[in-house]
């Protein structure tokens, strides 16, 4: 078996006294699509920072396979209006020749925007530009932070469809953070339910029946995705700490 692209072993992260993440163990290999869901403050963005190597774990280990090329689509990028930047130049900064840039933009459906200023793009267009920039590096690991934010339902499914087909093409591992449950459930292999630790994980059908999932997202929402119910093995107090 080949080494996973990225693996976490009992990884934890804290800022000062605050434990943001603890006891995370999971790994991803080429072709995996993992979606992380969880309430606000669950540590989703911190998890991304751990995986990308922006933050070092305060306990345990996070390992990227040596030489892994990573594509990253950050959340809500605010661009300085004082900095003039065309889409083409923005992609050029990632390296790669003009024909590769053109191909990447075409692949995400925004070829016509190459000479446009990045300040004039809509939210959906900008997401696709960021995605084009990420695949320009031919990544083995693609990490997306709330990629569908601000898109309507059609835009969301189209984007997830695109991510899926990019996975097939590049054979990369894809980690997405999201809270658009409906779309996530329809277009991912593995769901990882996060609230400081991994509450539950599995295929979408499985997870929607997990009590921890119900606990986290409320009966109503969970019921629209599943009708199954059984005993909780733990719950969370007001601080998000696990109590038996």
């Amino acid at each position, binding site marked *: 078996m080949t080494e996973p692209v990225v693996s976490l072993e009992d990884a934890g992260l804290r800022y000062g006294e605050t434990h943001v993440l603890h006891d995370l163990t999971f790994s991803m290999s080429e072709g995996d699509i993992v979606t992380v869901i969880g309430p606000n403050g669950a540590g989703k963005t911190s998890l991304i*920072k751990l995986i990308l190597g922006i933050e070092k774990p305060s306990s345990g280990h996070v390992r990227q396979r040596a030489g892994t090329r990573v594509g990253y689509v950050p959340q809500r990028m605010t661009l300085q209006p004082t900095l003039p930047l065309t889409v083409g130049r923005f992609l050029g900064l990632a390296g790669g020749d003009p024909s590769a840039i053109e191909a990447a933009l075409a692949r995400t459906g925004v070829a016509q925007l190459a000479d446009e200023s990045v300040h004039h793009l809509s939210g959906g267009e900008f997401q696709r530009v960021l995605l084009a920039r990420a695949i320009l590096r031919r990544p083995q690991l693609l990490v997306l932070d709330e990629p569908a934010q601000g898109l309507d339902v059609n835009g969301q499914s189209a984007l997830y469809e695109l991510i899926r087909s990019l996975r097939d093409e590049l054979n990369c591992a894809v980690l997405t953070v999201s809270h658009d449950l409906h779309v996530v459930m329809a277009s991912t292999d593995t769901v990882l339910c996060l609230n400081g630790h991994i509450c539950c994980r599995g295929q979408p059908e499985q997870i929607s029946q997990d009590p921890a999932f119900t606990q986290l997202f409320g009966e109503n929402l969970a019921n629209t995705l599943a009708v199954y119910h059984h005993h909780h093995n733990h719950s969370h107090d007001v601080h998000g700490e696990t109590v038996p």
Partner: protein
Amino acid sequence: MIDLILNDFFWRAMAGGLMVATVAGPLGCFVVWRRMAYFGDTLAHSALLGIALGTAFQANLNLSIVLVCVLLAVILMLLSRQQSLASDTLLGILSHSSLAIGLVVLGMMQDFSIDLTGYLFGDLLAINQRDLLWIALGGAFILMLTVWLWRGLLMITIHEELATVEGHRTGLLRLALMLMLSLVIATAMKIVGVLLITALLIIPAAAARPLAATPERMAVIASLLGMGSVVAGMTLSWHVDTPAGPSVVVAAFGFFLLLWLVRARAPA
């Protein structure tokens, strides 16, 4: 021709001004993009402290200015991590304190008969051949560093985390930018003085913004506008006998107003 430039104080001043303007263009863009105008002011004010200390210890002035600027930049970086004070408060404290300490130390050395006005507002016409050599060497070094680090500097300005993921050494790049700013301040001081250096950095860059569609073009246009300001300001200074440093800044401001007015009148 080279003889003329080296031996005539007017052409020496012109050559020095043009060199500083060339380097200040791209760096000024980073000051504008990264909202570092106040930071630049603080570094510039600390340059006076560098002069005071350099004079007191009879060290090379250019070197002591750069050292004090870099030291202050590092202190700022460390203090801003504490986050117990808002960064503009912190900058305000250090900016004016270093200016005041510099003035006090200089005041205590009356016998050195230092030309304070020259340091505060520049004494472009007093540039000697040695100064010109310093400006040329410092300027060439900064310009090479800017070109070499360009992509990384641009990436940490656009998105720091994306830059980290793409393998840029963000901490080193930030430090390099501060070092370059300190160097440009040390060289530009002779031209426009401590109080007006930030103007030479940000006004040409801001004026260039509406003319540019890419960061590279903005940097080049900022350099050209800076050079234009030096030529216009020096010419004004020559004919109307105005102080050279402030005249250069006034010329830059003139370009800025003109370009934004033209832009405002043109259909979008």
